[in-house]
């Protein structure tokens, strides 16, 4: 008797994601072996005036917002909606793990990240204020700060050397250690942390938090070698003999000069030197009128530090004006609250004074500024003087180290590009992935922040109108008059209750969906889902039901 055997593989089950329960963390997408999972953004209704504080949209604008998402903005590719909502549903540890998976310095980011995610938050665009994503990250980071990590198992004997223990180097080290490499980090100083410890003022970032997070990286299996200054090709060549891959992330540590007349006057200081001194606990005393030259985040930090160091009046002076000022608006706002004055659209001509005593700065207004080359024309008849006992130059940093070795992978400031903490970390992570690719041939999957996001199905539309009736916590700063007297942290953190309440504000506008044409029904997504009640395996017919 002939027996019929069917060789056709039948796919009995496919995965189905419940868009109401999904928190859009993206874990399933990362684990899906066939790339069947993608992200969709729900419509957030805002067609009526007076529904919220924000101006009403027309329908097309409302539809267009479906192309934006907080998940696209994080340079590290972490989904804020994911950890906010995991926290909301009582899964704080899962929320923390979601961050720690890609970001080994979560609390550091919780303090000082410039949070591009908050800028695209739809709550901020459509309802009132953006979610306090950074505040929640700080809350999560500090909640699990003292947790002892298990060392990552070493899976290979290929050695990695990383030069420089700033945020880029630390992230590279953590990423590679996680992938099973033995990693050694060389640091020229006596402590790891780079600009996090040396550059950022204490009132913005708690140094103990930085140290604890670095200790966790060390406990996870990364070796640190201190007092190891490796800044020339010969030393790198030595390292290359011993190590299979070398990543250089030494940063830019020298404040640029401002070579105008009188710049060698004694009281003309440089931002990096000053901050290093202050952060290392050396006594620095300023007095009288201080002028900070520069308009970036460093300039704002320095200006605020100057107030705390005894200056009576602090003025920031920068080339750019209006929105072109490189410091973030909230940094300028906080500085202004504390009494820092800003003169924008000007350029100094000379420092006035004898070699030991600065008396003032002469400057003019400028026009036709090209912000890429910093070329400009001085405006006629705008010459003015400002009294100054100290001038602090914060017009950017540079490095003397030149490495032109195709075998070495650069990361962080030295690799060029954007220079915020989170960008440095993203650059470190990409360097790590490149090194991994070089050594194992695993495809270089640069964490793609730019992805296609599909418009959400209609049944998931979000109505902010029904989610307004709660008294949400406000972002709390210590009073400006009080905070300028000490280097204590200026921004208050969220406590358990206010953090939970804050998560309630999230409109939850994104969700993941399964492309059933690609799904093979393996169920991996269901197993890795940190929330647990989102994904089910259903028969193929059922997957298209609402």
């Amino acid at each position: 008797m002939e027996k019929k055997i069917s060789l056709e593989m039948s796919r009995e089950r496919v995965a189905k994601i419940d868009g109401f329960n999904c928190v859009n963390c993206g874990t399933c997408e990362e684990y899906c072996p066939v790339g069947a999972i993608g992200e969709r953004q729900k419509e957030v209704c805002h067609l009526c005036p007076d529904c919220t504080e924000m101006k009403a949209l027309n329908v097309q604008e409302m539809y267009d917002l479906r192309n934006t998402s907080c998940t696209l903005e994080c340079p590290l590719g972490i989904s804020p909606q994911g950890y906010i909502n995991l926290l909301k549903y009582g899964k704080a540890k899962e929320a923390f793990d979601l961050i720690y998976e890609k970001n080994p310095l979560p609390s550091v980011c919780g303090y000082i990240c410039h949070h591009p995610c908050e800028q695209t938050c739809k709550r901020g665009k459509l309802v009132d204020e953006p979610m306090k994503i950074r505040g929640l990250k700080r809350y999560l980071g500090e909640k699990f700060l003292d947790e002892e990590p298990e060392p990552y198992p070493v899976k290979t004997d290929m050695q990695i050397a990383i030069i420089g223990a700033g945020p880029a180097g630390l992230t590279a080290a953590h990423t590679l250690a996680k992938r099973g490499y033995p990693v050694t980090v060389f640091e020229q100083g006596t402590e790891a942390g780079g600009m996090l410890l040396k550059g950022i003022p204490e009132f913005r970032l708690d140094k103990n938090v930085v140290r604890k997070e670095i200790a966790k990286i060390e406990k996870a299996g990364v070796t640190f070698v201190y007092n190891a200054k490796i800044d020339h090709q010969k030393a790198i060549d030595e390292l290359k003999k011993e190590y299979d891959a070398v990543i250089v992330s030494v940063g830019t540590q020298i404040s640029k000069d401002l070579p105008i007349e009188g710049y060698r006057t004694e009281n003309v200081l440089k931002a990096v030197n000053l901050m290093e001194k202050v952060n290392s606990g050396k006594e620095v005393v300023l007095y009288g009128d201080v002028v900070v030259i520069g308009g970036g985040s460093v300039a704002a930090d320095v200006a605020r530090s100057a107030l705390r160091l005894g200056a009576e009046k602090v003025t920031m002076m920068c080339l750019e004006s209006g929105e072109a000022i490189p410091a973030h608006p909230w940094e300028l706002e906080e500085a202004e609250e504390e009494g820092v004055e800003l003169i924008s659209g000007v350029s100094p001509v000379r420092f006035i004074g004898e070699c030991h005593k600065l008396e003032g700065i002469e400057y003019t207004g400028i026009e036709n500024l090209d912000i890429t080359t910093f070329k400009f024309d001085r405006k006629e008849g705008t010459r003015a003087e400002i009294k100054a006992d100290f001038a602090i130059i914060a017009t950017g940093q540079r490095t003397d180290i030149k490495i032109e070795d195709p075998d070495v992978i650069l990361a962080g400031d030295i690799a060029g590009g954007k220079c915020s903490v989170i960008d440095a970390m993203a650059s470190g992570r990409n360097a790590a992935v490149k090194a991994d690719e070089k050594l194992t041939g695993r495809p270089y999957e640069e964490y793609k922040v730019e992805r296609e996001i599909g418009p959400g199905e209609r049944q998931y539309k979000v109505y902010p109108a029904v989610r307004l009736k709660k008294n949400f916590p406000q972002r709390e700063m210590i009073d400006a008059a009080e905070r300028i007297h000490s280097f204590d942290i200026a921004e208050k953190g969220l406590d358990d209750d206010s953090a939970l309440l804050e998560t309630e504000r999230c409109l939850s506008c994104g969700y993941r969906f399964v492309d059933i044409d690609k799904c093979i029904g393996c169920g991996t997504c269901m197993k890795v889902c940190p929330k647990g009640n989102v994904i089910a395996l259903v028969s193929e017919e059922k997957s298209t039901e609402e």
Partner: protein
Amino acid sequence: MRKHQVLIVGAGVGGSTAAFHMAKAGLDVMMVEKEQFPRDKVCGDGQVQGIHPLLKSMGVYDEIEKYGYKCSGTLFSDDREIQYTYNYPDGEFAFATPRYIFDDIINKAALKQGVDYLENFEATEVITRRGQAIGVRGIYDGKVVELEADLVVLANGSHSMLARQMGFYEEDPNYVFYGLRGYYENVRGLSDVIEFHYPNKLFMPAGYIWLFPLGKTKANVGVFITEEALRKSGMTSEELLWWWRDNYKIGRERMGEAREIGKLKGWRLPTGKHKAVHGSGVIAVGDAGNMIEPLYGGGLPHAMMSGVCASRMASEAIAANDFSEEYLRKYEDYIEETLGSGYKIQEYLRSIVFDTEEHISEFIDYSIENFTDVQLSGGDGMAKFVHDVKGFVGSSKSAYSK
């Protein structure tokens, strides 16, 4: 809290009417409400003749008559700005009462019947056990509270996430309208008639600008438009109102010197009742059940009528002690009986008259020719249309007076 026989979510017109009739019939009713009464609601504020018997049956007609501004007719205009006014027969009026007052009167009437009542209760979801709705979870005084009942009545309006949870929610952009409403003073040219202006194809199907007079120079002005038409217009509903004011003679006359009182507000209006609105242990009333008219956007009568139907259903279900989906299917029949013919006529008119500006112009020409001071009676579609405006008479009248 103890278990009730019926839990009504939402104490607006639909919920309160249902509560009134249920409590009057002797049921043990609990009603919860997110806001605090009195509260505002986006609406044209008109109460046409069709609901007057309902108001009388609740004993609130006299009070509403006291507050309502009496309107004696209805005006239509088209893109050519040709107007047709239909004057109601002698002694008949439509009222225009601000919903801030109207809803409070209905709400208080229900409470007088002995309904248990909780304000500031924000319902978040229907609690279900083995597919059966057994109560509602919500936030009250900063805490999560659960209320249980044999029958849950959803009457919490057009944004009801509970109705969405139950699968009652209307998503069709051709049947979800958006309403914009503002109060204006110094409006010129009002004459005690309710005005519907059908300016342009931008508003099609069925969209219009309304003016409900609240005084000699004061009016409730608004825009009523489908989401689909709003998308095609490329404007916000607010911009559409200004566009009408700036581009039409009648718009300039009415609104040219008008002053806004308060703020413009908008609301979502799901219409047509295309979906079943009953489930196991749960039924929906009014906007939560998409019961707004798909042509005129009238919602008050439908909310009240469905409240009456819900009360009838609740009494029967409790008598039979059966809250299954099967048994509650009768609720759909009761709605069909009372409101079905109205919906059918409106759907029909939407498809043949209010689909293009030319058809509306034809209709207005026809009306001017045939309907001036003629006592109208049923017959062709046009006449039925006017009947409908006149206050839900004709085929649905018998149901209204029940």
